[in-house]
C-alpha cells in the first residue's frame, strides 16, 4: 500500500467523518440521526486503526458504536412510547421550528435572530482558526511519554504498552474510571423504577434460537479479548463491552431465568470488579506503595484485575442498557404490584 493510496484513504475517512457528523447533527429525524451516529462510531474506529491505535479502535467499535447506539435506540423507543408509526415523527424539528416562528414573526426579531447566529458562528470560527494555527506550529520536539514507557516496559509485567500504562503506570486513573462506571449504574438504578426487563412477548422463535448459539460464542470472544489484553490489543473494557453485548442480546430476547434474577447476585457482580482492583491495590501496601505490584507477580495480578473488571464492566454496561432495577426487597415488590 504505497503512500498515495494511504493518503487517499485518510481523505476518505476524514471526509466521511465530518460529513456524517454534520448530517447527524443537522437532521431533524431522530431515528435517522441515530443510524448516522452508529456509522459515525464505526468510521471513527477505522480512523483509530489508521492511526495505529488498535486498543482504541476496538473500544470505539465495541463501546462507542456497539453500545451507545443501542442505548440511544432504546431511549428513543422509550421516549416516544411504543407505537411504531411515531418513530418517523420529526419530534425534534417541529419543536425547533415552532420556537423559531415565535421569535421571527416580526422582521426585527428575524434580523436579530440572524445577527445572533452570525455573531455566534463568527466567534466560534475565529476560535477554531486560532486553535488550528497553534496546531500548525511545528511539532514540539518532545516525544511524549512514550520513551519512558519503553524504558520501564519490562518491569510492568505486560507486553502491550497501552495495557502497561492503563493498569500499571497509571493504574490509579483506571481505578477511578471503573468507579465512574460503578457510580453510573448506581445512578441509573436510583432513578429507574423496578423493571429489569419487561415482558413484551414479541420475541420470535428464530431470535431465541440464534441467541442460544450466538451468546456463548460472544462470551468466548469476550474472554479471549480480555485474555489477550496483556500482550495484544484488547483488555478489560473491550472484552467487557462484548460481554455486555451478549448480555443485552439475552435480555432483549427475554430469557426467562434472566428476568427474575434477584438483586443480590447482580449487585455482588457489579461490585466484584472494583472491589478486587481496590483490594489488590491496598494489599500492595504491605511492602510498597498503593498499586505497586511486586516484581514478577505484576503480569499475573494485572491479568487477575483484567478478568475481574472485565466481568463487572460487562454486567455494568448491560445494566446501563436495561435501565431498570432487578426486583428484590419487599418494598420493591410492593411497588411492583402497584405497577408504578
Amino acid at each position, binding site marked *: 500500500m504505497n503512500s498515495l493510496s494511504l493518503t487517499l484513504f485518510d481523505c476518505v475517512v476524514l471526509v466521511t467523518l465530518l460529513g456524517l457528523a454534520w448530517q447527524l447533527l443537522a437532521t431533524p429525524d431522530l431515528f435517522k*440521526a441515530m443510524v448516522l451516529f452508529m456509522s459515525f462510531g464505526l468510521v471513527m474506529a477505522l480512523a483509530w486503526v489508521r492511526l495505529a491505535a488498535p486498543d*482504541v479502535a476496538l473500544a470505539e467499535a465495541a463501546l462507542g458504536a456497539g453500545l451507545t447506539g443501542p442505548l440511544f435506540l432504546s431511549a428513543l423507543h422509550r421516549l416516544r412510547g411504543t407505537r411504531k408509526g411515531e418513530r418517523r415523527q420529526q419530534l425534534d424539528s417541529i419543536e425547533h421550528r415552532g420556537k423559531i416562528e415565535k421569535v421571527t414573526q416580526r422582521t426585527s426579531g428575524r434580523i436579530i435572530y440572524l445577527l445572533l447566529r452570525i455573531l455566534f458562528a463568527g466567534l466560534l470560527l475565529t476560535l477554531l482558526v486560532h486553535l488550528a494555527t497553534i496546531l500548525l506550529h511545528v511539532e514540539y520536539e518532545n516525544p511524549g511519554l512514550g520513551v519512558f514507557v519503553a524504558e520501564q516496559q519490562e518491569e510492568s509485567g505486560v507486553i502491550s504498552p497501552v495495557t502497561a500504562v492503563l493498569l500499571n503506570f497509571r493504574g490509579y486513573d483506571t481505578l477511578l474510571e471503573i468507579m465512574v462506571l460503578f457510580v453510573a449504574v448506581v445512578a441509573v438504578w436510583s432513578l429507574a423504577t423496578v423493571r429489569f426487563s419487561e415482558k413484551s412477548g414479541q420475541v420470535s422463535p428464530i431470535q431465541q434460537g440464534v441467541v442460544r448459539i450466538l451468546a456463548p460464542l460472544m462470551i468466548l470472544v469476550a474472554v479471549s479479548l480480555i485474555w489477550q489484553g496483556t500482550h495484544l490489543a484488547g483488555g478489560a473494557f473491550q472484552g467487557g463491552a462484548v460481554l455486555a453485548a451478549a448480555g443485552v442480546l439475552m435480555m432483549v430476547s427475554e430469557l426467562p431465568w434472566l428476568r427474575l434474577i434477584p438483586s443480590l447476585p447482580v449487585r455482588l457482580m457489579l461490585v466484584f470488579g472494583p472491589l478486587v482492583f481496590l483490594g489488590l491495590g491496598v494489599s500492595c501496601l504491605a511492602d510498597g506503595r498503593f498499586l505497586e505490584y511486586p516484581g514478577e507477580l505484576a503480569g499475573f495480578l494485572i491479568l487477575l484485575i483484567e478478568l475481574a473488571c472485565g466481568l463487572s464492566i460487562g454486567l455494568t454496561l448491560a445494566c446501563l442498557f436495561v435501565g431498570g432495577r432487578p426486583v428484590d426487597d419487599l418494598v420493591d415488590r410492593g411497588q411492583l404490584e402497584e405497577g408504578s
Partner: protein
Amino acid sequence: MTVLFAYKLGGLCLFFMGFTALILRSHPLKKIMAVNVMAAGVFLLFIAMACHGRVGVAIDPVPQAMVLTGIVVSVSVTALALVLACRIQETSGGAGSSEGEHPPQGDS
C-alpha cells in the same frame, strides 16, 4: 506530516460542530449526541498527537490510555443522561422544552 494535521483539524472541527449543536439543538437526545461528537473530536486530537509525526507508528501509548479512559467515561455519562431524559419525559412529559419552574408540589 500534513496527514496528521488534517486529522487534528478534523478533530477540532468535530469539537466545534458538536459545541454548536449542543447550544442550538433543544431536544435532549440531540444534545447528548452532540456531546458524544465533541468527545470523539477531542479523542481524535489526542490520538493524532500520539503518532508524533510518523503516521501509522504509535510510539506514545499514554494518549491512547487517556482516550480509552475518556471513551469509557463518556459511555457511562451518556447512559446516565439518557435515563435522565427518559425519566423527565415519563414523569412530566416535557422533555427538553423548558417550560420554566414547576410550581413546587410536595417536597423537594
